[in-house]
């Protein structure tokens, strides 16, 4: 086991190299000279020169690559073009608000969808199954814009149940603002989660061990709860762990509509304003986060099912 973990840890080195390489190629090599864009429309040529030097763009590519790696290790990504803020500050300030919405939202979603999908899988082929399938597909076909707009309009404005938008950094004050975004996040994930878990459970139900259990005379419900759920835990844990990076980066639309100062809103704004350094930093950080959580998920996977040794 220890050997496996060690090997898996070592494997992170080439992956890390790959991540930095891909980001570097995308942003530094193919992305062109961004100094002029960073300096602003009416910047004078000497200001652009200053900018280029400050961004390290006049160095050879190899040095620029090392700069990128250094940035990651020192957690210093320079400044945003649009807000002029230190990107590392923007990121550390954004994690809390994002998680305030996504973490409870995710947990509630799981608590609702896992039992429901187990039921749906149990009733595979019946009208109930097909109706749920269609409803879930409908839920995923409706654009998330609609959930956000409608949620804000009806729950907050018409019925006055929640504040329309805003944020309070104190722990006591933030829940009133986070509540509606959490509800919206849960309704957004219902459809896709049920579809996903249904497939996971169905895949398990057609495994040999289920047939064996059934031939032993075990009841359907018992098989479902005892065997299927337990075995499906493996893909569920994988999903849960691999979702954590996305929880950290938050939700793009919800945050910008509700004025939540999280990472999702930061990314959304950066995309709108072509804020290269922020997009670059978020890309690289998300990738590293994903890599780390993939490692955790692999280790958990190996712990749960010792037969599996991932290479």
């Amino acid at each position, binding site marked *: 086991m220890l050997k496996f973990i060690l090997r898996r840890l070592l494997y992170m080195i080439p992956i890390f190299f790959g*991540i930095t390489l891909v980001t570097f190629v995308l942003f530094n090599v193919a992305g062109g000279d961004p100094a002029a864009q960073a300096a602003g429309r009416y910047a004078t040529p000497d200001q652009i020169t200053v900018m280029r030097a400050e961004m390290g763009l006049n160095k050879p590519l190899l040095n620029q690559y090392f700069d990128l790696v250094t940035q990651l290790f020192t957690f210093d990504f320079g400044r945003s073009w649009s807000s002029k803020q230190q990107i590392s500050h923007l990121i550390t300030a954004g994690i809390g608000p994002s998680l305030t919405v996504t973490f409870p939202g995710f947990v509630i979603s799981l608590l609702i969808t896992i039992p429901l999908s187990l039921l749906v899988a149990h009733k595979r082929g019946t009208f109930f199954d097909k109706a749920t399938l269609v409803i879930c597909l409908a839920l995923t076909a409706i*654009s998330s814009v609609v959930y956000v707009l409608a949620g804000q309009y009806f729950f907050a404005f018409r019925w006055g149940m929640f504040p329309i938008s805003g944020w309070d950094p104190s722990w006591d004050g933030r829940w009133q603002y986070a509540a509606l975004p959490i509800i919206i996040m849960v309704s957004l994930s219902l459809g896709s989660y049920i579809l996903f878990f249904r497939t996971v459970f169905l895949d398990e139900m057609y495994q040999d061990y289920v047939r064996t259990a059934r031939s032993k005379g075990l009841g359907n419900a018992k098989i479902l709860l005892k065997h299927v759920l337990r075995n499906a835990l493996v893909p569920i844990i994988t999903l849960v762990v691999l979702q954590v990076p996305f929880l950290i980066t938050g939700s793009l639309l919800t945050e910008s509509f509700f004025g939540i100062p999280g990472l999702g809103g930061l990314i959304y704004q950066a995309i709108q304003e072509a804020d290269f350094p922020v997009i670059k930093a978020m890309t690289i950080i998300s990738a590293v986060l994903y890599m780390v959580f993939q490692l955790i998920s692999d280790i958990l996977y190996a712990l749960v099912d010792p037969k599996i040794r991932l290479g």
Partner: protein
Amino acid sequence: MSTVATQNFVPVAELKAAKGRSLWQDAFRRLRHEKVAMISLAIIIAYLVMAALCAAGLLFTNYNVTDHGAAYLPPGAGHWMGTDIFGRDVMARAAHGTITSLIVGFFGAALAVVIGTVMGAISGYFGGVIDELIVWFYTTVDTIPYILLVVAFSFVVGPGLSTLCLAIGLTSWIGHCRIVRSEFMKHRDREYVHGATALGAGHARRIFVHILPNVFHLVLINFSLGFVTAVKSEVILSYLGLGVAAGTPSWGMMISDAKLELAREVWWGLAAATFFMFFLVLAFTLFNDALRDALDPKLKSR
């Protein structure tokens, strides 16, 4: 948050054609008896026909006809789904949006499947260093969040329809690649492959002529899954302003317009785009479900 990977759950299938009947004939026979699958297929074909007719200028020719006096008409007799800001027929625009979606869906998914199959086949067949390299590459790309990768890509290349297809294709081949790779690893030591080697077949011949047909059902299934993902991606990217060029009818643009127009209670543009997208996605998903059942012999005993 809709980032749950719904691509990777195709179970690894042991494939051996049933005696006397080929796998494909068998699957086709089973599929034909599935009512839902046939209806879904009919819907998909209907979309294709509609898109073709629209593109050929035979159907909904009024999609670009403006009538500034008749802006924002609610659904009614003249315009079944109302009109938009320039008095254009919303239904015609939604119908023409199908072309964009089908193009993005087809080319995005096709590109992903081709890359995934080739990389997976090479990786699984040869193993060793080549395998290590390819696995390293896709693990790397896989760690970078899809949406940011697409955003970065379209910033570099510039937005547009071909960028959209490229970006979607280049970022969504990994799940398929993994599956193909593991299938090839199983097949490369089978007797029939050794037999082919004995008869003097080269690597390329063994990969493409001998093994590939045995895993081709996975290509089909993943293409169908990728299609749905690509259609949905178009909508999200258009919303972010990274979609097709302005003026081209697209569901994503219609939904993006609705963000503002809902304030004046103009809901029909959004409804039409959602409606058109819903049935395409629904048909594809149901068909895909049936296709999987039909092509996956393990489920046969049911």
